């Protein structure tokens, strides 16, 4: 569908970006120490940190992706929400306090705290960079993809805008400004999702009788687009879709339910008949034709799993294992994402780390419940673009008012800033603090630590912009899944065993991180999903039994750590403080 540019959305977005950059310069006006740059002096209040967790974690994929998935496939988008939130339980109960107690600026500090080994630092810094860059690519490509429909600018403009804004935010005041940007973004996102959800409930469910004729979109070899055989234009475009055909019996006389309570909304929806739209493609000499056609479905079917994860209904063991593997990776991955873990160094102590995680769980959990309503509301709003699930939430907002559309569009775009600045911070720490200072052994004064960190951030910002433009035409949404799997396989086994098994050795940790990272990456590159979506090969050619690696590679990480640790000398019980003494 073609979108009209909303000047209000551009204005809201521009004022947001200018005010956060202004705030960053204000926060960065004083000279900085390394502790200030990498860890916001460790003085962030736990409540602010909790909201900033939400701003860091809830990426554009979370907001637009999950809303869109619910709007198009029903319950299955919520399965992701459940997995994404569950990971925070691991963060709270197992990871938060030790990470805070053991580390200083980066995740590598914590894993290496007992050993002082360059091998560990190198392995962990590499895995931090790999995970952060995999996570970064979809954010940057997403920024480019979103800016066209939301703000009416070309793809590259979106990528460069985000890249420059984030680099400025990070370079001015490092973790301090990153934290406040994430705090502001997190609060705005959850607040306006709440407003939108309240408006959905207030409107209730409405029967609508839009046209149910199939629609055909043709892309001709020269790139022009036809809709039902005529050139696409503002006046002749795909019709928006998604509606309720029949409300339950008890509303037989009415076409609208009026305001509904939250759970009532879901139960009425379950008893309704809903029209969703599917598509099929075929190509001939004229071009590629996509036919969009209505499918009448019972609400009860849409509100249970299986719409997106077709494997859940096939009964094949490999499909079931794939699902278990995904749910395991989501559970273990969150607490191993470097850009989340570095937030723990911004608070005062372990109690603050704990409290901020609970705040994070409350805010992120609320957000996921709200996105379920947003997705379902969009599903029956009669406003969906059948070609793009990402636009579900903004288009839903448009059914209420153009101002709300402008606000939601601007917020959807600013969600990218919060997450990307966290990722650049994590990468900057890995390059400057872990690799240059600790692995290469470059001695740095406090001032130099900050300067190298900022140079690394600028470099990563440029890399991020380049990747966002290069990967433009690739399907990058699955890269977030890769990042979760690699983080869970490489980082979690090492961290958990370090905390709970005294016999863990530095060689064990280095081997587990390296092999966890390589094995999950190799598995992904050989999987049926990658064969089909990335290389364009047949699914059957894949040599691994299911696509998600976590179920195999997370236990493998533990196994490697245990075996290697048992074959290497145990760590000294006490740090070798005598090593600097003469040995006569």
């Amino acid at each position, binding site marked *: 569908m073609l979108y009209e540019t909303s000047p209000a959305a551009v204005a809201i977005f521009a004022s947001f970006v200018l005010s956060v950059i202004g705030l960053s310069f204000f926060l960065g006006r004083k000279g900085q120490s390394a502790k200030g740059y990498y860890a916001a002096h460790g003085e962030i209040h736990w409540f602010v940190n909790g909201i900033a967790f939400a701003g860091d974690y809830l990426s554009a994929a979370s907001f637009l992706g999950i809303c869109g998935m619910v709007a198009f496939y029903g319950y299955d988008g919520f399965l992701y929400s*459940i997995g994404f939130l*569950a990971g925070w339980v691991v963060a709270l*109960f197992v990871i938060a306090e030790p990470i805070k107690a053991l580390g200083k600026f980066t995740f590598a500090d914590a894993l290496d705290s007992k050993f002082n080994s360059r091998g560990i630092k190198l392995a962990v810094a590499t895995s931090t960079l790999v995970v952060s860059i995999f996570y970064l690519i979809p954010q940057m490509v997403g920024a480019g993809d979103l800016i066209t429909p939301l703000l009416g600018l070309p793809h590259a403009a979106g990528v460069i805008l985000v890249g420059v804004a984030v680099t400025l935010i990070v370079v001015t005041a490092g973790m301090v400004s990153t934290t406040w940007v994430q705090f502001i973004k997190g609060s705005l996102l959850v607040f306006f999702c709440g407003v939108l959800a309240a408006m959905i409930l207030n409107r209730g469910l409405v029967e609508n009788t839009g046209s149910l004729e199939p629609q055909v979109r043709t892309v001709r070899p020269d790139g022009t687009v036809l809709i039902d055989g005529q050139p696409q234009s503002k006046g002749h475009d795909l019709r928006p879709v998604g509606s309720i055909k029949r409300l339950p019996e008890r509303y037989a006389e009415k076409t609208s339910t009026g305001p509904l309570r939250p*759970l009532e909304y879901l139960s009425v929806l379950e008893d309704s008949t809903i029209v969703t739209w599917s598509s099929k493609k075929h190509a001939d000499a004229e071009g590629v034709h996509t036919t969009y056609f209505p499918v009448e479905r019972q609400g009860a079917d849409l*509100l249970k799993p*299986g719409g997106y994860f077709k494997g859940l209904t096939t009964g094949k063991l490999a499909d079931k294992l794939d699902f278990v593997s995904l749910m395991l990776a989501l559970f273990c991955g969150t607490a191993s994402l470097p850009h989340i873990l570095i937030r723990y160094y911004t608070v005062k102590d372990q109690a603050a780390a704990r409290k901020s995680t609970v705040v994070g769980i409350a805010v992120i959990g609320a957000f996921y419940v709200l996105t379920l309503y947003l997705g379902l509301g969009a599903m029956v709003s009669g406003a969906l673009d059948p070609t793009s699930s990402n636009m579900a939430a903004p288009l839903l907002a448009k059914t209420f008012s153009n101002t709300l559309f402008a606000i939601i569009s601007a917020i959807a775009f600013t969600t990218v800033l919060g997450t990307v600045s966290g990722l650049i911070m994590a990468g900057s720490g890995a390059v400057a603090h872990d690799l240059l200072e600790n692995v290469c052994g470059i001695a740095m004064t406090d001032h130099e630590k900050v300067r190298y960190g900022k140079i690394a951030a600028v470099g990563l910002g440029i890399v991020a912009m380049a990747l966002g433009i290069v990967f433009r035409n690739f399907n990058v949404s699955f890269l977030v899944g890769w990042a979760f799997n690699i983080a869970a396989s490489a980082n979690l086994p090492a961290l958990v065993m370090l905390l709970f098994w005294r016999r863990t050795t530095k060689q064990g940790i280095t081997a587990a991180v390296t092999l966890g990272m390589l094995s999950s990456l190799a598995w992904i590159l050989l999987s049926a999903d990658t064969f089909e979506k990335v290389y364009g090969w047949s699914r059957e050619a894949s040599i691994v039994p299911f696509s998600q690696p976590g179920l195999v590679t997370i236990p493998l990480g533990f196994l490697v750590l245990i075996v290697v640790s048992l074959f290497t000398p145990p760590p000294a019980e006490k740090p070798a403080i005598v090593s600097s003494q003469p040995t006569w």
Partner: protein
Amino acid sequence: MKASQAASQAGDDKRGPVSPVHAAARGTAARIGLLLCLIYMVLYAGFVAIVLFRPDLLASRPFGGVNLAIAYGMGLIASALVLGLVYMVACWLVDRRTVDGRAAQKTVLPGRK
């Protein structure tokens, strides 16, 4: 480096240079955390198991209104928060006992400067 090594001992080694009472208290809190984590893992695994093996149950409406899929999903999100709050209170109680314990220790051993 020294600071982080000391912290390492505090977090991970009960014989480290922290007050033994405090280390024991952290031990108690950490055990509570692991127990709560285990409870959540059972709930989460139960959900995954139902999705895989008894998908028919998910459409049932055990509480009248919404189906089990929605109720269990929302329940998982809510229980993460509830367990988190339980943990916070538990840690607070343990910390308070530690402070009391330190005070008691001081009164018992006044000669130890």
